[in-house]
């Protein structure tokens, strides 16, 4: 029983972070039909900014206050997104998908090296935040409290984004633009502005994912590329462009990964990629996507 609880928590932990990354990716695809290959780098950027901010202020501020610095990563990622969309991506909406993929692939290479340039080749850590939270024991296992907070943030984010998209006027505009950009534009909606806002929101989610995971895992080069592929698996399973799909996909991937790591660690990743391939074959639009 105790082991089961630990495994469930492990699945939820992974699913929370994954939902934040994949949800952003899916939101951006849903609204502007662009697959952002650099999305994982925004997650990494969030992690780096948070770790850097915590590192700089660690000596001056008490540890409790340092938690307030974590959201900086999410804000920074959102800011970066708000700059990138109008300058780099906007010229590509009218062009073939190939070019959109290529330009975001180029962006991936640039952002990867930008982080290497800014923060050097070594990992940054903010582990003091992880440790001061303490831990509780579940049966014989010691479980860090911080992970519970990550799960809570993931759940709150899911709730928040749902309320945002389905209960606010901005959400209505967003969904209208997503369903029919021309019609929305004809009805007087400033589509360009909606695009910037949606992209910024997507990047904010990715950055938040990076910011909350950095105390436990640190920020390393290459984390973005790995995260992107897992986010792809999630959105392919859930359906590109669907937020519900991203949530269900993240939970599914979280559970399968936890089972995989415990029972068949050697083919755990292969199983996840195969899962995505199988879903694509049976339901190319994903479990929740519209065809």
């Amino acid at each position, binding site marked *: 029983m105790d082991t089961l609880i630990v495994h469930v928590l492990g699945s939820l932990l992974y699913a929370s972070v994954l939902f934040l990354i994949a949800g952003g990716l899916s939101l951006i695809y849903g609204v502007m039909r662009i*697959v952002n290959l650099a999305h994982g780098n925004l997650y990494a950027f969030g992690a780096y900014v948070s770790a850097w901010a915590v590192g700089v202020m660690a000596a001056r501020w008490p540890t409790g206050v340092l938690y307030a610095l974590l959201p900086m990563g999410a804000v920074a990622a959102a800011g970066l997104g708000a700059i990138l969309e109008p300058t780099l991506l906007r010229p590509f909406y009218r062009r073939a*998908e190939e070019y959109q*993929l290529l330009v975001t692939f180029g962006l991936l*290479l*640039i952002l990867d*090296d930008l982080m290497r*340039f800014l923060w050097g080749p070594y990992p940054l850590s903010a582990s003091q935040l992880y440790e001061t939270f303490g831990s509780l024991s579940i049966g014989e296992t010691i479980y860090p409290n911080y992970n519970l907070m990550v799960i809570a943030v993931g759940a709150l984010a899911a709730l928040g984004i749902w309320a945002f998209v389905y209960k606010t006027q901005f959400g209505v505009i967003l969904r209208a633009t997503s369903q029919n950009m021309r019609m929305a534009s004809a009805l007087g909606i400033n589509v360009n502005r909606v695009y910037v806002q949606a992209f910024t929101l997507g990047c904010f989610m990715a950055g938040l994912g990076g910011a909350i995971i950095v105390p436990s895992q640190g920020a390393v080069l290459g984390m973005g590329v790995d995260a992107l592929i897992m986010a792809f698996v999630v959105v*392919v399973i859930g359906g*590109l462009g669907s937020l519900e799909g991203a949530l269900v996909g993240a939970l599914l991937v979280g559970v399968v990964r936890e089972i995989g790591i415990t029972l068949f660690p050697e083919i755990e990743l292969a199983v996840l990629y195969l899962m995505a391939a199988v879903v694509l074959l049976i339901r190319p639009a994903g479990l929740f996507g519209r065809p």
Partner: protein
Amino acid sequence: MSAIPLPPSRLLGGAVLIVVALAILPWVVEPYQTTLLSYGLVMAIAALGFNLLLGYTGLLSFGHSAYFGVGAYAVAMTVKYFKVTSLEAFVVVGIMAAAAISALFGFVCVRYTRIFFGILTMALSQVLWSLAFKFYNVTGGSDGLRVPTPSLLGTHIAPGEDKMTYLAHRYYYYVLGIFVVCTALMWVIVHSPFGKALQAIRDNETRAEFVGVQVRHYRWVAFLVSGTYTGLAGALWVPLNGLTTPDILHWTFSGEIVFFTVLGGFGTFTGPIVGAIVFNYLKTFAVGYTVYWQGFLGVVLVTLVLALPTGIMGMVGRLLQKRQKAPAA
């Protein structure tokens, strides 16, 4: 309709001139330069295959690292388990392994087009990457597998002979020979009725279907040929590099293949060849010059798609057209 379409004589003459120049090259330049060009030619074979899908069939694969890697790993495992070190065997094994995998993956992938095709190819290539990464006993994990310098047509490297000169001369000619055969074959393929059918599918799938082209079957064959070319490139690459690691199976390497095909220009036959060779020099230069070579290549890529979407050969073609028009005007 003649069975084999022949290129116009002017083009053939130009091609012969280029091949002669490439054949003389090892006698003129340093061995290092020749080895670098060998890498370029190997990548050009991969790009030729890749472009059959992107340029001629209109399918963007983000998983061609799979076939390149399968070619390379098939060779490395032949060395590991059968102690075979002949390049002829490498080529045969690489082609067979890549053909088998691309037949299987292709069968699955060609049901979809556009972004779904791209993601599906990427997901399948990542399956192979994770297996190569995790099965340490078989693949050597992230350490990879070593591959010794093979014998060419039964002749081994002489006991005192420098590996660099061996690779720069005899191996180079071997690669050049295969490259010429591959290019000629690809020329025939894209100008054959089959190639025309692929272009018809690319331009308008519905119409192609309407005039009786079996779209899915044709796409599958194109995928098979494309993957096999890329696998052959992998098999030729691994003795040059001496080592194969999971990096060449990772999707970012697929991105590199896309990159150099677009750099050369995927709308032309020669574009991918030029792109692969130029990219190889560009990357070598950037790696030697700065630790931020990846960012440099990213800037090149973004500038390219913004300012020069038809690639190098597309631009050359436009300039030539302008020059031809100028006297008449």
